[in-house]
């Protein structure tokens, strides 16, 4: 259960190796979370229950009991069962964080439409099925938070990465709709819109203006748990920047270098 000062007991991270996801989990554990489920592809083979790999060890050192589950974002038919399995391990799910995703290059997608569709299926479809399955559980238990990692890439889609951006746009709309659908249920959705995140996923790319680190995104997410915000911009000033960008005439927007 979440306590009066925003500390939680249980966390489920989907995409259990995600840099942002693990940064959020680490902060929640430091603030008192004691039971964690890391769900990732081939997790039980490579991040076995009780240790071996760094994230599990790190979280256990901080005092958490860590469980590991196999999870494939591209197989929506397994998602409802996974949520139930996580709840069977740790009880009520206080915070659920789907943090999986792939960032392919637009040039590759242009040449390989099948790869584009496959990645959209993960970045959008996978989040829809896991989000709905999680929402059902949160609604039943009458409390809990679903953290949806959207992106400014979906706020106004750019030609430089419009496949990725359009999946994020879909996800952002889905998450807002779900937030409204869950209003009054005791459960809530936080839609996180980071700017360019410097990290493993963007290695080799030149950071955009107002870029952030995974740690900064995680700080903002954890802080939002104490508030009633639905949308969290990281950094916060991106909100204003995008209010302007949404107004840019298309010929200008089209000419943006990236």
């Amino acid at each position, binding site marked *: 259960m979440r306590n*009066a*000062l925003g500390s939680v007991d249980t966390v489920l991270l989907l995409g259990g190796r995600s840099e942002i996801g693990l940064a959020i989990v680490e902060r929640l554990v430091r603030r008192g979370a004691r039971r964690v489920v890391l769900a990732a592809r081939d997790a039980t083979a490579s991040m076995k229950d009780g240790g071996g790999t760094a994230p599990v060890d790190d979280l256990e050192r901080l005092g958490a009991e860590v469980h590991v589950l196999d999870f494939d974002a591209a197989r929506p038919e397994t998602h409802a069962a996974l949520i139930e399995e996580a709840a069977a391990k740790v009880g009520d799910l206080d915070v659920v964080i789907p943090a999986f995703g792939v960032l392919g290059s637009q040039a590759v997608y242009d040449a390989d439409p099948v790869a584009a569709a496959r990645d959209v299926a993960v970045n959008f479809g996978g989040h829809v099925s896991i989000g709905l399955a999680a929402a059902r559980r949160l609604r*039943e238990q*009458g409390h809990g938070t679903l953290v949806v990692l959207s992106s400014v890439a979906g706020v106004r889609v750019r030609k430089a990465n419009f496949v990725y951006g359009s999946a994020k746009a879909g996800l952002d709309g889905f998450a807002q709709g779900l937030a409204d659908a869950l209003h*009054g249920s005791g459960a809530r959705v936080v839609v996180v819109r980071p700017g360019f995140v410097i990290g493993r996923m963007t290695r080799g790319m030149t950071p955009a203006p107002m870029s952030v680190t995974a740690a900064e995104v995680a700080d903002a997410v954890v802080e939002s748990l104490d508030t009633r915000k639905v949308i969290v911009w990281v950094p916060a000033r991106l909100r204003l920047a995008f209010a302007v960008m949404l107004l840019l005439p298309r010929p200008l927007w089209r000419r943006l270098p990236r």
Partner: protein
Amino acid sequence: MMLLTGWGRTAPTRATVARPRTAEEAAALVAKAGRRGVVARGLGRAYGDAAQNAGGLVLDCTALEPSWRVDSTGLVTASAGVSLHDLMTALVPRGWFVPVTPGTRYVTVGGAVAADVHGKNHHVDSSFGAHLRSLRLLTADGSVRTLEPGDDLFWATVGGMGLTGVIVEATFQCVPIETAWMRVDVERTRDLDQTLETMAATDDGHRYTVAWIDLLARGGRMGRGVLTRGDHAAPGDLPARARGNPLAFAPRPLLSAPPWAPGGLLNRATVRAFNAAWYGKAPATPRRIAQGVAPFFHPLDGVDGWNRMYGPRGFVQYQFVVPLGAEDTLRRVVERLSGAGVVSFLTVLKRFGAGTPGMLSFPMPGWTLALDIPAGQSGLAAMLTEFDGWVAAAGGRLYLAKDSRMSATTMAATYLRLGEWREIRRRADPDGVFVSDLARRLRLC
């Protein structure tokens, strides 16, 4: 379906709320509670999540056979849903006073038993459970059992936070009074040492005592406060205007808090101003006054919905007890709070006497300090967690009816009879039908 919170208005969760009017209706509801279980709720004055049950069923017991009776010796039998306000309104004019009242009259008898509430007379009269003669408890099997102080389940229920069943009725002994007034000595103290010394030295001469502490005072004035000691007044103590009808008692709220208040209204500046005025108003040498029962025991009941004044983020109440001899722990907490400039609107210090055999009952002989703190203050969570450690190390504990944030680890380390309580509860409720958000958070069951 409703979103419920405790009095602190933090951490809302959703539950189905039903309002049984009879024990039979309550039994039928318990029987089909479902896998998220059920818990009884009274007037929602527990500050945290004690009367919330996320995703499950909450029984609003305020309509449960609302009746009571009193015999010629002051023995009262009341339905669990009757409030102390209703009881006092009826009993005080007849010359009887409830054996224990917390800082508000707006608690139900069932809630008073479930939290084993204490009041300003704890050092003399212990807590509510000490005055109980019997209880009727609706248990998970649908039967209503009559329990007496010789029964294990009785003492698992007193202070048991509603997790052994639905309290249906309680019988307890009231005390005779001659007037609805209190003879009160008010005195201010220079610092914490003087507050503690004066309380320890003079408590026993009075039935009711409490100290208000100015937590924002620092340095040599740290822990200064206003000491209030009272006893039920005799007719001769009353002001002339009250002598004609000395047992008259009809309190009602004087003010109502606005339905919405911005966060930050109770900030360091406003609380400092209030504290200075309150402290300044109190006499430096003891002064005796006559005061009505309501303003003496329940000053905050004068403002309807005062919890809304803390704004949308709500507030937490932190109340701990440390045993006698652990005054250093108390001093460390006050020093730390005062040094950090923590805003606590009402800080109250009290010396406890003997506890009851209630396994999860809070009071023990020692010092208890209660704080009201707006939930938004930065660094608050970490500071209170640090205090938890000090309190646990001193052999103390936190009050479950007030708690909304301690960890399951702190709970297990400070309530040493938790294992025994779990065992008795397991026998009475093998399927774990009775459950609350508090029980989940603290892993009680």
